[in-house]
C-alpha cells in the first residue's frame, strides 16, 4: 500500500465545506478521490459549485472545514512544489495586453517542465499567429493560447473550466486531438463542462456535483455496464426504463442493463436522467 500511494498521484478531499457567505454553503461535506491516468468530466447545473470546487483544489480559495490533499500537499498552504504541479484554465480568461511570446517568457518560469516547442506546436495546431499579440486576437483565440499554455506547462494536474466555451467548431475538434495527444499516464485532467457533446468521447470518469457534493463518480465503462442507452419507438415495449425523453422518432431511454447490452453512453441524457431520477440511478452505483 505504501508503494501504491507513493507512485500514484492522487487528489483526496474529505468533508469539504465552503461558502462565500456564512451559513450559506456552496459545498458541504464533499468527498472525492481522484487518481492519475484519467480524464475526469465534472458535470453540474449552473451554480452547483463546479468552479468553486476547482478553485478549492488549486488553492485559490480556502475550505471553511474539511481537508484537501494533492500529493500530500494542502493547497491552501500554497507551497511552491504544489503550485508548480498545477494549472487551471479559468472559464473567463483575462490576459495582459502583451505579445504571446512575451506572455510565455514571463509566465513559463513558474513551471519547471514548461515545453516551449510543444507550446509553439499547439499554437500552430490552433492556427494562432506565432508573433501575434494578446490584444489583437479574439476571445476564442485568447482562450486557445491559454489552453496551449496550460498543456505546455506539463503540469501533473490540469484543470479546465468550460474550455470549449467560445471555441469555434474546428477548434473544439482540435482541442480533443490536443488533449488526446498530450495526456500522460501520471497526469490528472479535470474538465468542467456544460457542453458535454463537445467532450464526451474524451472523458474516462464522470463526476456529478449536485446538492453541494459529488453525488456520483463513475467510469464510463461502469455506467454502460449498469445502464443501457437506446432509442425505442414504443415506451411500453421496453423494460426496466428509468428515464426517457420523447421525440419525433420515438423515445430515447435510459434503462437498467439487465441483458448485458452494449450501448454508447449519452452523457447529456445520463446527466438529465440523474437530475430527474436521482435515487433510482444512484442506487445502482457505489455509494460515495
Amino acid at each position, binding site marked *: 500500500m505504501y508503494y501504491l500511494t507513493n507512485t500514484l498521484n492522487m487528489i483526496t478531499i474529505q468533508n469539504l465545506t465552503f461558502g462565500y457567505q456564512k451559513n450559506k454553503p456552496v459545498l458541504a461535506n464533499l468527498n472525492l478521490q481522484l487518481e492519475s491516468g484519467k*480524464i475526469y468530466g465534472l458535470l453540474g447545473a449552473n451554480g452547483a459549485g463546479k468552479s468553486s470546487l476547482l478553485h478549492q483544489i488549486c488553492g485559490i480559495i480556502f475550505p471553511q472545514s474539511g481537508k484537501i490533499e494533492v500529493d500530500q500537499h494542502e493547497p491552501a498552504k500554497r507551497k511552491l512544489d504544489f503550485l508548480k504541479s498545477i494549472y487551471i484554465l479559468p472559464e473567463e480568461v483575462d490576459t495582459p495586453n502583451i505579445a504571446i511570446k512575451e506572455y510565455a517568457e514571463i509566465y513559463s518560469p513558474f513551471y519547471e517542465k514548461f515545453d516551449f516547442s510543444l507550446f509553439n506546436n499547439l499554437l500552430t495546431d490552433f492556427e494562432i499567429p506565432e508573433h501575434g499579440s494578446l490584444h489583437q486576437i479574439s476571445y476564442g483565440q485568447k482562450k486557445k493560447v491559454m489552453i496551449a499554455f496550460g498543456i505546455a506547462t506539463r503540469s501533473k494536474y490540469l484543470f479546465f473550466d468550460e474550455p470549449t466555451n467560445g471555441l469555434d467548431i474546428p477548434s473544439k475538434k482540435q482541442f*480533443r486531438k490536443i488533449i*488526446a495527444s498530450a495526456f500522460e499516464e501520471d497526469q490528472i485532467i479535470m474538465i468542467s463542462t456544460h457542453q458535454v457533446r463537445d467532450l464526451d468521447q474524451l472523458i474516462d470518469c464522470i463526476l456529478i456535483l449536485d446538492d453541494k457534493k459529488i453525488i456520483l463518480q463513475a467510469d464510463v465503462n461502469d455506467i454502460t455496464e449498469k445502464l443501457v442507452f437506446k432509442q425505442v419507438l414504443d415506451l411500453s415495449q421496453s423494460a426496466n426504463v428509468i428515464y426517457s425523453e420523447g421525440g419525433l422518432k420515438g423515445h430515447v431511454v435510459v434503462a437498467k442493463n439487465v441483458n448485458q447490452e452494449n450501448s454508447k453512453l449519452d452523457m447529456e441524457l445520463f446527466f438529465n436522467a440523474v437530475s430527474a431520477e436521482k435515487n433510482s440511478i444512484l442506487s445502482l452505483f457505489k455509494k460515495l
Partner: protein
Amino acid sequence: MDFNVNLPIYLQIAEYVCDRILLQQWLPDEKIPSIRELAIELEVTHNTVLRTFEHLQSKNIVYTKRGLGYFIEPNALNLLNASRKEHFLKEELPSLFYKMNIIGFEIDELVNEFEKFKNKNNS
C-alpha cells in the same frame, strides 16, 4: 471519426480496426498504429483505445510485443471472416428465412436465384 452508432466507443474502434484487417490494409504480423496515434486520430482518451486493444487481444485479433506495440495476429483475417459467417448465420439468415416462410418462397427457388446472382457477379 463519428461515434454515432449506439455501440460503446471502444467497440466502434474495434470495428474500425477489424475493417482495416478485412480490407487487408493492415496485414498479418504488421505493427498497427500505437494507442496514442489512434487516440489522437479518433479524438478519444488513450484508456478507450487501450480497452479496444485488450478486447481485440482476447479475441486473438491482435497481439502485443512488450515495448514494441500491437501487431496483427497471423490468423486474424480467417477469424474475422469466420465470425462474419457466424454473424450471417445467426443474425441475418433467420430474418430472411422468416420472410421466405411467410411468402411461401421455397429453398429450390432460392438456390436458383443465388446461382443466377453468382453468375452475374462473377462473370
